[in-house]
């Protein structure tokens, strides 16, 4: 019974994401389903442009939740990710309240009495009003839950990972002066990484590890179909076939899904009916981002087109 429900729920995830224009493979859908069920973040790895960030956006749109994005970079620290004291405001208030303080403390005869009175006011300057919430704290404070996207975690420093551990496993943040802030509704957390450096085991352990590679030909055709509706079926097949051939070359940066979609748009704009050597050579710069790659690909263009066309006939 439970099995039946699981597979239908996974299909529901698939169709829900598809409605937002994100064609998910079975593995991706399973990961999204599981992350909801056992409340664990998903760590998405894979080459640039295969739709890691898009996944988070699609989930947010599908479930009608706000998306909070934290872009990581070298030097990102807790003041920019978690929270910050509004130091200037604190200082400004003390300056303004100077006179007031004088009045309050005026009645006290001794230093001890003054100190006692001061204690009675409590930590006025270290209260919620003076906390500037940054993305991570914001995510916990959303009453309806949200999708928290921690983008390109591999670009941040190793220390920053440790900072994330508390929020990832318990969905809470400890602010020394205020205490622990727990999530009102646990957010759906997506972390993305381009594997520029190895992430720590502690971080990986707390996440579901999802690797998104280049999609299979069929899946990629469906992705193009949903993203670029104006393209004819034949051209779609040919171009996806061509890109799959291109990925077999030893290139510096292989064209990924986002490039496929861009190229499809370009081809539609140029009103190409089918692939020919001329148009491919003219638009190769959409697919390949390095001069050396373009030069390496040039000689293969006509063979790849022929092969892609043959696939089209038989496949």
């Amino acid at each position, binding site marked *: 019974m439970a099995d039946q429900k*699981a597979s239908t729920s996974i299909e529901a995830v698939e169709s829900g994401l598809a409605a937002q224009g994100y064609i998910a493979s079975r593995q991706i859908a*399973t990961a999204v389903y599981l992350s909801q069920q056992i409340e664990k973040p998903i760590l998405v790895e894979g080459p640039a442009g295969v739709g890691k960030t898009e996944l988070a956006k699609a989930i947010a749109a599908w479930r009608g939740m706000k998306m909070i994005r934290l872009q990581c970079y070298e030097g990102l620290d807790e003041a920019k990710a978690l929270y910050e004291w509004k130091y200037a405001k604190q200082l400004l208030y003390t300056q303004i309240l100077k006179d007031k303080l004088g009045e309050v403390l005026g009645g006290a005869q001794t230093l001890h009495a003054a100190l006692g009175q001061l204690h009675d006011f409590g930590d006025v300057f270290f209260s919620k009003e003076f906390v500037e919430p940054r993305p991570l704290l914001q995510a916990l404070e959303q009453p309806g839950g949200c999708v928290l996207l921690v983008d390109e975690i591999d670009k941040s420093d190793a220390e920053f990972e440790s900072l994330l551990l508390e929020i990832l496993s318990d969905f809470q943040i400890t602010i020394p002066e205020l205490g622990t802030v727990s999530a009102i509704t646990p957010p759906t957390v997506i972390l993305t990484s381009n594997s520029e450096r*190895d992430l720590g085991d502690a971080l990986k352990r707390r996440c579901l590890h999802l690797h998104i590679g280049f999609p299979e030909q069929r899946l990629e055709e469906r992705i193009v179909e949903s993203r670029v509706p104006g393209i004819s079926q034949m051209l779609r097949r040919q171009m996806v076939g061509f890109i799959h051939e291109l990925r077999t070359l030893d290139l510096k940066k292989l064209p990924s899904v986002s490039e496929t979609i861009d190229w499809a748009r370009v081809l539609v704009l140029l009103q190409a009916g089918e692939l020919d050597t001329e148009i491919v050579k003219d638009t190769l710069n959409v697919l390949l981002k390095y001069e050396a790659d373009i030069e390496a690909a040039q000689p293969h263009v006509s063979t790849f087109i022929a092969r892609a066309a043959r696939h089209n006939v038989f496949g």
Partner: protein
Amino acid sequence: MRENLHRFFRAARGAGVRVSPAESIDAMRAVAKVGFGDRGILRDTLLLTLAKTQDEKLALADTFELFFSPPEPKQEQLEADDGRDPQDADRGAEPDAANDSGGSQSAEGLGPLAQMLLSQDRNAIAAAIAGAANAASLSDIRYSTQRGIFSSRILDAMGLQRLRDDLDDLTATNPSLAERLRAALDGLREAVRDTVNQGLALYAREEAENLRNEILRNAPLARIEPRQVEQMRALIRQIARRLRERYSKPRKRQRRGHLDVRRTLRRNAAWGSVPFLTAWKRKHRDRPKIVALCDVSGSVAKVSDFFLLLIHSLHEVVDDVRSFAFSSHLIEVSAILESKSPEAAMAEIMSKVGFGSSDYGSSLDDFEHEFMSTLTPQTTVIVLGDARSNNLDPRADILRRISERSKRLVWLNPEGRMTWGFGDSEMPRYATFCSVVRQCATAQQLERAVSDIVATYQ
């Protein structure tokens, strides 16, 4: 089924996927949610929760296939069954009622195992084998030499003794049934053997790999066999990863809590020095700068090869590496190493400078003339070589100047200390100008040497 999952986790560890207790709990929870109904989903679920890298995913997928492959005993029995079917049909033609009743009569006196075998209940047999394998703790199997003992343990646990007694009795009373039982027993032995083999493939891999790596780590690099080179490279990459994890820390870190008073006051001069903006002290930390001079003549070449591989896979820790190779003269090889695969790079380097007789004097001379400016007070210079200069002028004076210009000069010598200074070895003369001289013949020594060098920058 929980028992099965636990065994799967052990198998996963055997395949080199690190599964911690916390991860296994997560996996259990996830599996509880998705159930066992769909093989594909179960596989994806386990991959998602247990594997942490793409390599681990591949290894785990293999393990999954092996572990949850349809149990082999079933197939064995199926084939055996097919073989026997015609016989059964033959017997059916004969007056089978008597035979059958005779069979059941004698079966009544038999032990449970004999009855199970005779009744051809494949599922029951498979379950019994699995149960007995558990009882014999098959998951503790480590070496291929243990196969025999585990097979006999499993068979014992299934009640082989009783079966033998039954067989003896039957031979006297009902020979045809005894014949059938004997054939079934052979089938059972085969099934158990397959189970043990599968167990070995699943659980013993880690142990075998650990043992092999341990041996490899302590094997002299120069005398490594061609078939081990690939394994050695993998091991070096592992070492590089470990060093990277240990030493890749950010270069500057703010020391929170140490106010930089001077900068704070200066910055807030506009507000009458009320410190609206604070400035904090920073601590700068240098990333290692390494200049490596590698002898690529003869016996030292292999060690240089692995050393260069290690240094260049440390690019996250070591900011700036320049490598030079020499035998009779010296060239820079950084570009070759960075643009090519290790094999191709080494081949190209060898074709350019390798295989000559080494001349340390002229190589050092080349370095001084062309590349002396690469040395800064932050640079660690590593020379890897046996210091055997074929009785040519060692030019130790150049080494002195190199040492003076750099932070440290480390000499790694693949030869043992015993031989330094004998024959044409100039090691004692060079050693005077080196901060550290150490022997470096095995992967383990290589790791220690590089680790020490990187650690001085922390």
